[in-house]
């Protein structure tokens, strides 16, 4: 069975489902309750589940993320929402030095089954301090897992998977996806690995999260030029499913990476390095990265769009990789 809904609704369904089925689950974060969520994701949940299970927090990112870690240690299954990744910088110590490390440094005694959701990304003209994409930073840290639902169906089902995980799982929801309406597959697909969103034989376009729509559109444009692009959605940034990528490269021999992070030190750099390590002799051309220009994100639409990855940039890079620049 399937129907369409927005990404926002899909996340909300997932939250409602989790709150409804597991009494250990609760949602906490800034304005998740009475306000309804900065991106209106949790609207209605306070009325349905009450203030003990849908908890508005003060503006104290470190404390409420840490409280989530503590509550997880205490047997709960907290879903902590950091309104946006931009504010996660204030909770970095708790995420890295506590959530990620506790299991290992306690000799495996303590697990931290925490789910941390954040909105991420640019595109809404929110300027430099409100447009970060720092998924790569978290994907760098052993002990954390990082997923980026890029579709309505993934948004609907990844939360449940994350909640079952005894480790801290970070879910990044790109702000430009919330309003997207797509077919929702009600039954959970296998969400363990990267997924080939479009099969193709000429080039592998690898991406995740908010950049998937751009990559997919680019593939359509390219197809009209006779270029058959495979589009891969990583889904998980940590652990990274390199096998799926290697299989694709073994077929296409050419790779374009699309990633909204600033280029230097991006997730795309890591993927490139892994492909060099594992599929170097399969590569017929240098891997190209389509990332955000290395500049604080500017406010005006023309400048913001100029610095972000775009369908046109993906098309251009792909042509180059195929020597059709």
């Amino acid at each position, binding site marked *: 069975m399937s129907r369409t809904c927005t990404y926002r609704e899909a996340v909300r369904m997932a939250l409602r489902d989790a709150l409804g089925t597991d009494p250990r689950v609760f949602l906490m974060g*800034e304005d998740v309750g009475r306000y309804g969520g900065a991106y209106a994701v949790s609207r209605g949940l306070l009325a349905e589940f009450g203030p003990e299970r849908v908890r508005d927090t*003060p*503006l104290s990112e470190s404390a409420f993320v840490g409280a989530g870690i503590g509550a997880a240690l205490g047997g709960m299954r907290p879903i902590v929402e950091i309104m946006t990744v931009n504010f996660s910088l204030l909770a970095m110590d708790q995420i890295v030095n506590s959530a990620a490390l506790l299991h290992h440094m306690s000799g495996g005694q303590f697990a931290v089954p925490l789910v941390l959701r954040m909105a991420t990304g640019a595109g809404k*003209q929110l*300027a430099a301090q409100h447009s970060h994409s720092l998924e790569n930073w978290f994907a760098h840290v052993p002990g954390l897992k990082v997923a980026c639902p890029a579709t309505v169906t993934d948004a609907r089902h990844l939360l449940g998977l994350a909640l079952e995980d005894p480790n801290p799982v970070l879910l990044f929801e790109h702000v430009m996806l919330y309003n997207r309406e797509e077919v929702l597959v009600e039954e959970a697909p296998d969400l363990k690995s990267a997924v080939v969103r479009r099969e193709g034989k000429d080039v592998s376009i690898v991406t995740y999260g908010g950049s998937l729509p751009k990559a997919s559109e680019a593939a359509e444009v390219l197809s009209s030029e006779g270029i058959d692009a495979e589009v891969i959605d990583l889904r998980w940034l940590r652990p990274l499913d390199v096998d799926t990528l290697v299989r694709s490269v073994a077929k296409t021999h050419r790779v374009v990476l699309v990633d909204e992070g600033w280029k230097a030190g991006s997730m795309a750099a890591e993927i490139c390095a892994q492909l060099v390590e594992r599929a170097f002799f399969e590569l017929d051309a240098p891997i190209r990265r389509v990332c955000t220009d290395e*500049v604080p994100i500017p406010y005006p639409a023309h*400048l913001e769009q*100029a610095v972000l990855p775009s369908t046109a940039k993906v098309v251009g890079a792909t042509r180059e990789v195929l020597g059709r620049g």
Partner: protein
Amino acid sequence: MSATVLPEMELTQARAEALLRQMLRIRRFEEKCAELYSATKIRGFLHLYIGQEAIAAGVIGALGPEDAIVATYREHGHALVRGIPARTVMAEMYGKRTGCSRGRGGSMHLFDAERRFFGGHAIVGGGLPLASGLALADRLKGRKAVTACFFGEGAAAEGEFHETLNLSALWKLPVLFLCENNLYGMGTALDRATSEPNIHRHAAAYRIPAQTVDGMDILAVEAATRKARAHIESQGGPYFLELSTYRFRAHSMFDPELYRDRSEVESWKAKGPIVRFKSLISESGLLGESVVRRLDAEVCAEIEDAVIYAESSEWEPADEMLADVYRKGGDSP
């Protein structure tokens, strides 16, 4: 700390006019911004200050040009009162190159080096440490200046609030902390955000002298600021003002305002800073209806001019913006 008020400044006609003009400038500017937002000329986040005008106008009017200002994303009013021309503020709202931040910052990131207006910070609490550093620089350089640091009551729960108040008190830095308590941080009412909703009482934990002020009364705000500034000058250390106020509009243009009653908003509007000041001056006969109308007309003309300026300004070309990440200078790569 009780509010021993300094000898009142006389409320002359000229002064009344100046105060009212500043509040009207903010009000009209922002009403126009709301309109321009609907017209999609302004985009991104837009946080209106309407209802809180007496604070920016009262505080900044009592500062000197040597003083520094650090503000939040709800800072159009502060920028205008500080003297950043409405034209360049409006151009910034549009994202035009003639804007006071070259158009790159927009509504949340107004800056003006010449006027010591240090932003325009969109991370709640993020401006506070910076303010203490500006004050430290003033002290180390032997400059007689105060750094006025504005923030909302929601910021008081952030760690940076605590750390900065402690550091400023410990080092006796000339910071004037201005907590604009409009009762909500987005949709979260004050008493759901802090266990001590009398924010000024937090100051005591750092031995910072503090006072509450009716933020709807521009004269009280001005008087309290003068007193606080004098205290900082004579004692060297920081001072804390909690200014009670209310935001009449939604938190931002995305806010459906599910968390408060229309009636609450209406009752605050009735006590608004402009209505209140207008009735004071009309009751006292200080300014007549016609003067107020003239003022309003002048202000509206200023705003219209600002819009024309913004409309006719150029966009910054991408290459220029891309090349300006680092300040040139020095011998590093």
